[in-house]
């Protein structure tokens, strides 16, 4: 196990450098004129142009210039310095402010997915082909079919503006209550997937040999479901939720935008829209680490849940 984790960590280093190089190349290769982009539709004065060119080493052109800037960037990165955005703010500071908000949102979404998704999934699995099962099938299909970009504004309009059950946006220092609606919207997609996964897996395990054995031993049904079936059924769900957590931590561009939540996705979106290359690369580099770590944690959790799985 220890060797396995070590090997994975070493792979992570390689993966990290590979992805940052690709992200760096893509961000800056597709960019026309970063200085003009920064100025928007205004003309750029020669003084301003000279200042920014020097500041971001843009005078080094071609492939040599690219690697010069990339290595410069990696050097700073290894010293824990994520650099500055084009508007002169420290990216480290930006992330420090944005992350707690995103993490809170992600946890709410995940909690929604677990509480409602797994519970309903188990119920639907036990009562296969019942009204409950069929109606959840239709509902989850519906949720899976509606993209967040439609779902989020709809929820905001009806629950926030029309009936005023929730605040329509979260804004600065959001309360738990203000994050609840965006959390539900964000979690609804994982909820639907988790529900379907749990249902399929519970239904399958209920027909397994060990359940028949347990039943013939005379165990009560609740004990069979909770102790025997659920534990075995949760393995695919945990995998899914683990990966989903990594996903959610990287911020939800659409949901954070619609509900005005100053999280990671919100900043990433601004970086992309204003062609703020350093900001995009800085955030994505950190996200790469988040993904790698959450994947590792999921793999390790496997072994915890299922004793049959061993790593060498």
């Amino acid at each position, binding site marked *: 196990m220890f060797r396995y984790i070590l090997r994975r960590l070493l792979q992570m280093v390689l993966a990290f450098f590979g992805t940052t190089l690709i992200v760096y190349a893509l961000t800056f290769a597709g960019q026309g004129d970063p200085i003009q*982009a920064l100025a928007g*539709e205004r003309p750029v004065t020669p003084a*301003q142009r000279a200042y920014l060119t020097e500041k971001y080493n843009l005078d080094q052109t071609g492939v040599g210039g690219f690697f010069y800037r990339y290595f410069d960037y990696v050097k700073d990165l290894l010293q824990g310095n994520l650099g500055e955005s084009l508007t002169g703010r420290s990216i480290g500071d930006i992330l420090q402010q944005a992350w707690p908000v995103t993490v809170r949102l992600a946890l709410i979404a995940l909690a929604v997915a677990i509480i409602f998704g797994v519970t309903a999934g188990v119920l639907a699995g036990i009562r296969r082909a019942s009204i409950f099962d069929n109606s959840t099938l239709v509902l989850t299909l519906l949720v899976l079919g509606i993209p967040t970009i439609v779902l989020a504004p709809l929820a905001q*309009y009806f629950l926030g503006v029309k009936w005023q059950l929730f605040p329509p946006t979260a*804004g*600065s220092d959001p*309360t738990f209550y203000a994050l609840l609606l965006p959390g539900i919207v964000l979690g609804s997609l994982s909820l639907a997937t988790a529900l379907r996964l749990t249902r399929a897996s519970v239904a399958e395990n209920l027909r397994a040999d060990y359940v028949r054995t347990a039943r013939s031993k005379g165990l009560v049904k609740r004990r069979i479901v909770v102790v025997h079936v659920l534990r075995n059924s949760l393995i695919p769900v945990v995998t899914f939720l683990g990966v989903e957590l990594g996903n959610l931590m990287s911020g939800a561009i659409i949901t954070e935008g619609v509900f005005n939540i100053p999280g990671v996705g919100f900043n990433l979106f601004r970086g992309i829209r204003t062609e703020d290359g350093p900001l995009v690369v800085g955030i994505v580099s950190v996200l790469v680490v988040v993904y790698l*770590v*959450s994947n590792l944690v999921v793999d390790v959790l496997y*072994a915890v849940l299922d004793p049959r799985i061993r790593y060498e």
Partner: protein
Amino acid sequence: MRVRRLAAWTALPLAVTLGLAACGSGGDGGSGGSDSSVVSIQIAEPKHLVPTNTTEVSGAQVLTGLFSPLVDYDAQNKPYEVAAQSITSSDNKVWTIKLKDGFTFHNGEKVTSEDYVNAWNYGAYAPNGQDSNYFFEKIAGYADLQGKTPKAKEMSGLKKVDDLTFTVTLSEPYIDFKTVLGYTSFYPMPDAAFSAPGVLKDSYEQAPIGQGPFKMKGTWQHDSKIDVERYDAYPGEKPKVKNIEFRIYQQLTAAYADVLADNLDVLPTIPTESLSTAPSDLGDRYRTSPMSSFQFLAFPTFDKDYSSPDVRKAISMAIDRDEITKSVFKGSQTSARSFVSPVLPGYRENTAGKAAEFNPTEAKKLYQAAGGPSKIVISYNGDGGHKDWVDATVNQLKANLGVDAVGSAEPKFADLLTKVEKKTPVGAFRMGWVMDYPTMEDYLGPLYSTNGSSNYYGYSNPEFDKLVKEGSAAKTQDEAIAKYQQAEDILAKDMPVIPLRFGENVFGHSSKVKNVEMDLFQRVNLVKIEAAS
């Protein structure tokens, strides 16, 4: 067993971190804005909050609260003194600026002429990389502060006379200089802003100290809000509200939802998506007011397809502007038939004359006689919501001129400009302009002069250049305007661009505020706004 315990240890730290983060979410108080004594106004995250580095509207909106300008503009958009006692010149070259006594910065420092001189020198010094650098170019000695290693740190044209007086010498006479002084970049900065002469403190931008009606309450909370409160020692007109929260939104649609729910007080721009429903959603809280934006279609005049003025006039006549403003913009913009904005002193209606009147039969005749291209391309930037009206325009051209016409989107405006600068054939392309200060010169100079900063279409007419120059060097305003108008008449003949639309502020507010007014620069008037009782 050993294996499983190790696994649990690896998983634990993450779980603990998450658990702690979750604890942090409870307990903190309600989000601001619900307290009726605070008026909230939507802005986007400002790029900067240093006066000489702020050129976009969100930053400028915050700075109008924190600073008081030398001049402001009256209902006719003529300048009148605010922080200045008088601004005079006998030859329009050497200007004497006397400051009003009694203005203090929010840290108690008295405002002196030196604070203006220092701030302007800081802005003009090229290595500081300030966005508004070019606003100082008319001042004598500006050139010495440019380049990588400038010759001087101070402009020779700025001279302190006494604590409340200083003189500005321009490199050549300029009639509109007093009008220019209303711009954001001409605010003063206190001594406390500088750590050494000419070196701005990094922390200044996080909580700018100004001499305006409001002072910072805390610091700039990036991506979330900027709080300001009334500065009681302000000698000018007192604001009616005590606290203002500038709330930062990434998307206008989110802000719009908040206005509908009375969760946000003022939304200076209603998002395009909501324009058709906004009048019924907001009722009399849906408002419009004049603004200076000007949208037009530019032609690469160096391209032989479009080099004939008749071709350009024919295209102009084939466009039904009123139809587009009505159906695409739902009346939030008005048709343009002149080359400068209607908000300016000296504006005349219909200067483009016949060439801007919708007349499909004449247009087709003229187009064929002038030998216009068989395919017209209109390029635009795909990120600015321009697709709808470009498509409508293209369809009109197809129907009315009997030619093939297509719209072609470039990802960003910068990409479009790069192509135009390299003279890649992009066909006609959209452009827009918002003024920095209300003079005709601010349109004629940058847009149509041979060396104009935004003249991407290669238009050059020596006679026009001469008239604009004579106008800005004129002795009196009336004389200047006469010259500018003559220059505009030349544009009507040459038609280097096709005027399309003038913009309007389309804004909305909650039921908790009244007297919401917006100026020509898309900024909310912070002194006039009141809480509705």
